């Protein structure tokens, strides 16, 4: 059975076929764009920080005891806490820092290169003790890690050693080696010398500076409290999580502790995207079901309406397979028409969405996949009614209704 007469017959019942084609077109547009959004969100969610997120615990310590008014006491407590945390069974490393991964923010500043003109570079800035790299599981790529001598440098001094992330180094010194170079923040008198370059580093921020970071070897503790990042040995996270509070309370009990795993923080950070992904998945599934039901409904209706015609065709020599083929070809033509329009619609919808959501571009692979999916969906939905059509007895042709 060729396409010609099927096509000519369809032209005489345009309304219903246009309906199905429009439905297919819109479905293709919606599904491909939804998949685009989902893939983008998933890529965003799967983006690695460069840290061993799954082994990390954030420990916030908030002091209320009077004793913390004394700066010297704060210093001793921080040292004692550091020692206690590092010695806890199951702990691989711990660092006194105010950096928290996956919080969706942090602290940042604008730096200028010494002797590099007025150009300013915005970067995330964090204080940390030398344990930070081992704690995060970040590699030193060039130079050296910060060490105890950097950490204990005179806070009144005018030069400090710092480590910067690889991307920040490349941004500041695209041509040269960043090691040994120095920069300053607003005050040209205080300069910071790059002694180490680390990577990978990614921490999402309100501004596009997720890959740029400077770690200063300084304390961030004051009378109100301080923070640690603790890295547990593989499989020891829960145990470590349970034992931290006891160990720290033993040092000073006049403070409150807030513990959260970095995995938990990360989940929270991504929960908006997560909800969107789930909702879009739901929408897509329901949409495909609705479209399939629509095709089944209209094809069934067509079959019922054309029973006599089918009987006649059978009487004139059509086999059951011929009848099934007829409906499949008819549907395939409609779907094909729909997907052609749908591709244009998908592109239009995409450019509309791009004004709202950044970066949700439509890859051609998704379109190809969508077209294939709708072809299959169309054929699948038609098969049932088509098989029912094939069961119409040829004797129906002779019945006078």
């Amino acid at each position: 059975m060729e396409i010609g007469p099927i096509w000519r017959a369809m032209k005489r019942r345009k309304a219903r076929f246009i309906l199905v084609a429009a439905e297919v077109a819109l479905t293709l547009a919606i599904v491909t764009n939804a998949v685009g959004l989902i893939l983008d969100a998933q890529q965003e969610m799967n983006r690695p920080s460069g840290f061993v997120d799954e082994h990390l615990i954030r420990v916030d310590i908030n002091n209320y005891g009077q004793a913390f008014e004394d700066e010297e006491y704060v210093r001793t407590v921080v040292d004692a806490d550091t020692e206690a945390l590092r010695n806890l069974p199951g702990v691989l490393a711990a660092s006194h820092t105010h950096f928290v991964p996956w919080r969706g923010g942090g602290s940042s500043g604008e730096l200028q290169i010494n002797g590099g003109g007025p150009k300013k570079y915005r970067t995330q800035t964090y204080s940390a003790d030398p344990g930070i790299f081992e704690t995060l599981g970040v590699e030193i790529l060039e130079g050296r890690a910060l060490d105890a001598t950097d950490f204990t440098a005179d806070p009144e001094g005018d030069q400090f050693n710092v480590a910067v992330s690889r991307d920040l180094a490349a941004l500041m010194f695209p041509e040269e080696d960043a090691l040994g170079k120095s920069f300053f923040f607003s005050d040209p008198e205080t300069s910071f010398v790059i002694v180490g370059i680390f990577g990978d580093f990614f921490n999402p921020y309100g501004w596009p500076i997720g890959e740029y970071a400077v770690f200063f070897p300084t304390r961030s503790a004051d009378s109100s409290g301080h923070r640690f990042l603790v890295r547990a040995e593989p499989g020891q996270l829960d145990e470590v999580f349970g034992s931290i509070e006891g160990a720290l309370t033993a040092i000073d009990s006049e403070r409150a502790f807030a513990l959260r795993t970095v995995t938990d923080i990360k989940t929270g950070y991504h929960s908006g995207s997560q909800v969107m992904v789930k909702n879009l998945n739901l929408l897509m599934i329901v949409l495909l079901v609705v479209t399939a039901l629509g095709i089944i409904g209209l094809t069934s209706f067509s079959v019922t309406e054309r029973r006599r015609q089918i009987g006649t065709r059978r009487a004139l020599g059509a086999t059951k397979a011929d009848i099934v083929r007829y409906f499949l070809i008819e549907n395939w033509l409609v779907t094909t028409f729909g997907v052609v329009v749908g591709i244009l619609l998908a592109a239009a919808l995409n450019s509309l969405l791009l004004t709202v959501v950044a970066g949700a571009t439509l890859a051609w692979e998704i379109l190809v996949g969508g077209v294939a999916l709708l072809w299959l969906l169309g054929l699948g939905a038609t098969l049932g009614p088509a098989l029912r059509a094939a069961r119409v007895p040829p004797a129906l042709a002779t019945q006078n209704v």
Partner: protein
Amino acid sequence: MLRYNVWLAWKSVRRTSKLSALIILGIALGVGISTAAIGLYRFFSGDPIPHKSDVLYSVRIDSWDPEARAPHTGGIPTQLTYRDTQAMLASDIPSHRAAMFKSDLYIFPQEADQRPFLETVRVTSSDFFTLFDVPFAYGGPWNRQADAQVEAVAVIDQELNDRLFGGGDSVGKTFRIVQQEFRVIGVIDTWRPKVKYYDMTQSPFMPLEHVFIPFSHLEPMELRTSGNSDGWQSNPTEGTFGDQLQISETCFIQMWVQLDDKETLASFQSFVDAYTNEQRKLGRLERPNDNRLTTVVDLMKEWEAVPEQASAMAALAILFLVVCSLNLIGLFLGKFLARAPIVGIRRALGASRRSIFIQHIVESELIGLLGGTLGLGLAALQLRWMESQLQRQVGIDGFFDLDGQIVLVALMLSLISGLVAGIYPAWRICRIAPAQHLKMQ
């Protein structure tokens, strides 16, 4: 006649129960999913204080680095410095004005056995409560005198009231914040704007604070913000906390004023501009004047308070509803045309085209309403499901509850899709010639 039509429609729905159920399910799914998405969008984008959003203005001053534009969305800092805030608070032009920031502070309950706990405190002016129409269960806000004299008074919400005092009228009772003893002056009744519009600097959906204390405590208590603070200069380190505050260029304070008409708006704008011109002469605020008074709704737009995902989902969901309507047109077409012989008889018996048309539109609207009601249930379920996933972000129970407007939206959607889907099939069927189907097939 309408009753007869509704009766005919109901009979037809019952007779073709399988197909009708399919159609109703189709409408329900379409209306459900799009209502949920539109509802979500509206939760995020709706005017949180519609009766006075046109007179509430946030105050912003471009106090950023003379050499560089501020990196914030609007191109100017989102918040004010302490000294600029002081100048703004001094103006009598606005009928109400409030400066504010939040600070994480320890609260010490009076009961000795209760451990102190960390609480986010909003440090603000007395006008906060009148500006934002905060309802009180007991007592009321402090007055401007309390602001000026740094009185140790606090407004708390029901939740903290329960926690500290076991609920009830706690006006006059005391509790300690850090070192300072505070007296409860008012207890807030249930108050939960969907968007935390008075402070969107971190996220428009942060939980509201449970304690409010006068702004003037900032200096003596040496309070620090736990919200965003943006600076382009290192903080001063010399001198007392107060001295540092007076010269700091760090922006951390949100400022709101109520300007009741166009004239007040204009005169306050010129007041702010005059202030910045003045400061420029003194060697500060070297950037050209870019001082902005922005309404709640405009600020939400500027800061893109609606998560981009919510907008994208709303757009897709509306298209989804279109697909469902197309689908319904097909199903109605099938349902109605299957009945063509009967309609032929009706026409032969004298039914007019109009009455046949109306009969079928009534039927599709009836089905639309049934589907819409079911869809509303589905939407409620879906929103509940989203809420359970966003608990941490939203932090408010019942954030996604259906309200009257959403119910209205859903019913409108179902009536519209019933109508859109019914019109063409009803038109087709009413054009059936009276005898056409009596003769053959």
